[in-house]
């Protein structure tokens, strides 16, 4: 149990830093099937259903971490490098014998160096992104609050509610100066029915992200362009100030079904529908001009089947299918401008070997297919790309002392990116090293992660370095 909690802390410690980049609410819950190898993954890992969150005692945790990305290989509107500093306080506490809550507050300081022209935090995340003509450093900073409440309604029925709210500001201190204010909130609710070797749940999520970009030029005009897709842009009129408002609202609804116990066969499966709408408006001289809206609808199916015998060996098989379609309407012309269809499927297996209580190792492989079908209509452009992805990974955890736990994880993968990466595939190398120490006052964990992403047609790479430090008190 202690082993599992400590490993979880390290992963969360690093994951917290990674997640800071996705300050906005993600389209879908991305399960990590490599997590928690000591026992089968439960429905919360798979779905984020707050009713399925398992209470395992009170604790408080402080996490700090950093991430540095060196992007020698980059796209036109990517920065040269990125840096993120992250601090978080997280706690889980019971209210009575039927309910508990968890809260978290985090603060991020995220910097992008030499960001060319883009006024957006992530130019490639929107079909109606805006650019100007400058290159400069951007600093994003702000807090985020999270709260989760879980209550046992009856002997077998659990109800969970989760919310998050974050505010982030940024400044691109160049001409024009670009000020960004983001307000994001997300709400998740679910019901979970658990009885003996069976569980079933339903859940829903609604999120609302609002971003305001305001470009101000102090002596001359802001000359901005609104991209419609990734190839054609609309020339905005110059003005002393240009403001863009992007509103994104999303909905996820789904169900999960599980069977089995912690020993023997255990399976969990989930399906959810995804729906998101994104609107862009331009404000110039107190007038609002609609620029575009796009709608994404999809389906996310995932599941895992585990066999934990309680002996030295265990197996985990998993699979995931994500499929969605987009269409975008230009509100300048009132016509359909973009259609996009993406499908990603992966499946894998993992062998876990546990020769003793202080040693554990795993070896896994996964394979998958991706298919991207993207069409722009304003000035005809079409990209269709598909291929196979794979990943090999291994890792080990062992106690190097009575209170010291060490783990290492390695992975090597092939990834097929979307067309705007200008390469057919990436090769990812990933190393994670962690050390956990139990003291009389709590657990101290340190972790380090290195990711190298190499495109197939270039010698330049993307290097990511992450480090994390956490203190946990139970």
């Amino acid at each position: 149990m202690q082993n599992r909690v400590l490993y979880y802390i390290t992963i969360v410690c690093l994951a917290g830093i990674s997640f800071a980049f996705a300050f906005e609410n993600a389209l879908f819950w991305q399960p990590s099937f490599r997590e928690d190898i000591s026992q089968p993954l439960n429905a919360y890992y798979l779905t984020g259903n707050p009713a399925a969150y398992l209470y395992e005692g009170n604790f408080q945790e402080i996490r700090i971490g950093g991430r540095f990305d060196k992007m020698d290989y980059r796209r036109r509107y990517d920065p040269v490098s990125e840096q993120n500093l992250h601090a978080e306080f997280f706690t889980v506490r019971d209210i009575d014998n039927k309910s508990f809550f968890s809260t978290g507050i985090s603060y991020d300081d995220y910097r992008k160096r030499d960001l060319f022209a883009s006024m957006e935090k992530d130019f490639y995340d929107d079909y109606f992104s805006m650019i100007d003509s400058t290159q400069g450093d951007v600093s994003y900073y702000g807090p985020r609050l999270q709260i989760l409440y879980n209550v046992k309604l009856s002997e077998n029925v659990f109800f969970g509610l989760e919310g998050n709210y974050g505010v982030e500001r940024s400044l691109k201190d160049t001409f024009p100066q670009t000020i960004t204010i983001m307000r994001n909130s997300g709400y998740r609710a679910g019901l979970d029915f658990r009885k003996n070797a069976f569980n079933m749940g339903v859940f829903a999520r609604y999120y609302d992200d609002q971003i305001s970009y305001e470009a101000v030029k102090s002596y001359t005009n802001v000359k901005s362009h609104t991209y419609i897709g990734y190839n054609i842009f609309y020339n905005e009129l110059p003005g002393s100030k240009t403001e863009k408002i992007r509103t994104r609202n999303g909905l996820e609804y789904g169900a999960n079904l599980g069977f089995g116990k912690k020993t023997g066969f255990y399976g969990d499966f989930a399906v959810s529908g995804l729906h998101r709408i994104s609107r862009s408006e331009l404000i110039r001289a107190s007038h609002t001009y609609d620029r575009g809206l796009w709608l994404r609808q999809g389906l996310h199916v995932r599941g895992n089947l585990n066999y934990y015998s309680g002996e030295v060996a265990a197996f985990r098989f998993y699979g995931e299918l994500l499929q969605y379609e987009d269409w975008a309407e230009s509100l300048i012309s009132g016509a359909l401008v973009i259609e996009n269809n993406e499908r990603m499927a992966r499946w894998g297996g993992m062998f876990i070997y546990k020769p003793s209580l202080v040693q554990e190792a795993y070896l896994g492989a996964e394979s998958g297919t991706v298919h991207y079908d993207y069409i722009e209509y304003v000035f005809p452009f079409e990209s269709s790309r598909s291929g196979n992805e794979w990943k090999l990974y291994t890792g080990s955890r062992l106690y190097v002392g009575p209170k010291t736990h060490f783990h290492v994880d390695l992975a090597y993968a092939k990834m097929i990116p979307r067309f705007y990466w200008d390469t057919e595939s990436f090769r990812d190398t990933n190393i994670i090293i962690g050390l956990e120490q139990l003291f009389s006052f709590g657990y101290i964990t340190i972790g380090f992660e290195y990711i190298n992403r190499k495109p197939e047609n270039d010698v330049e790479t993307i290097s990511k370095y992450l480090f994390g430090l956490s203190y946990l008190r139970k």
Partner: protein
Amino acid sequence: MKTRILRLCLLFFVLFAAASCFLFESKPETVDGNLSIRLRFTLPSDIDSTVTEPVAGLRVKIVTSDYNIPEMYGITDSAGFVLFEQLPYAYYSIEAHSVLQVSEFEEVEVVGTKNLNLTANSLGTDTVYTDTLLMEQSKLGLKINEIYTSGPPNNMFYFYDQFFELYNGLSETVYLDGMIFLRLGTTPLFSDTLSVTYIYQFPGTPLTGRQYPVEPGEFVVLAGNAFDHNQIGPISGKTVDLSDADWEFVNMIESGGYDNPNVPNITTNNGRVSQKSKVDFMVGVTGDGLALCDGTDYDQTDGIDVNTVIDAVEYSSSSTHTKEVPYVLDQSFGGIGQNKYAGQSLERIRPGFDTNNSRIDFVVINAPTPGYHHAE
């Protein structure tokens, strides 16, 4: 307990339904990039002017400044038709010109132009826009050919290097004597007189004076301040040398105003034309109206008669600008998208090219060209 669960489920359902209302939109039926523009170019018949004839073999240019797509060209067929396909919905300027041999010793330039604002909403389900353009003889004459007002690249609000360029597109010499150059105020769009902000006059007698000739094909530069603006440190190498300008604006009651002794003056408050402002001739950096008049009506108190106007131009960087110059002088305005303090200038697409539609006639160029044309 069951009631509690039921209520919770009901609450979920209501919230879900309420949220869904904001999240659904219907997919548009019209697809962008499918627009076709089919135009027919015609000319009045030589035999009967009430009858039109198709113009075959005419090179037609279609351009939009809305998107980063290149300008397109087409050639009319024997029936005078030209078709442009797979276009996005946008604001287009269409322009075609041709030189016709009317006799052994005479040629005339004919032009056909039009501005089109085409959106899916304006066309409905039809994806083909069809129109007939009657070509007219080009309005040759003395024209305001270039307007440089937006300032060089700088961060100190420097725009004092403004100049205006005239061009004589006629085959005979014209004379500037007594002509007046106006910065226009807001004028009712169907008015017979022009509202004036600044009024400056060339020396000499209007119409009959013969002291200040402009030869056919000659450019004339009218400088706000006729000196080398590159001598100013922060903008050195980024602006224009106007020390050799042909004319310089001078307000006779401006105290300490710059006056290059080697450049003749266009003056105000000179005992003939007067204005209240004591400053030099300066116009809006990215929006204003200008007129060159023959000078027979120089009393601005009751407005300047539009019939005395030789050429007038309205410009604005904003497409939503409210028009201020009567339609009879300029059907639209040029300079949309012009950026201030970026060294951009506004010039006719060809020297002296004039259809009384500045949105078609003018193009924003990236650097001023005093005394010559950007295409040279």
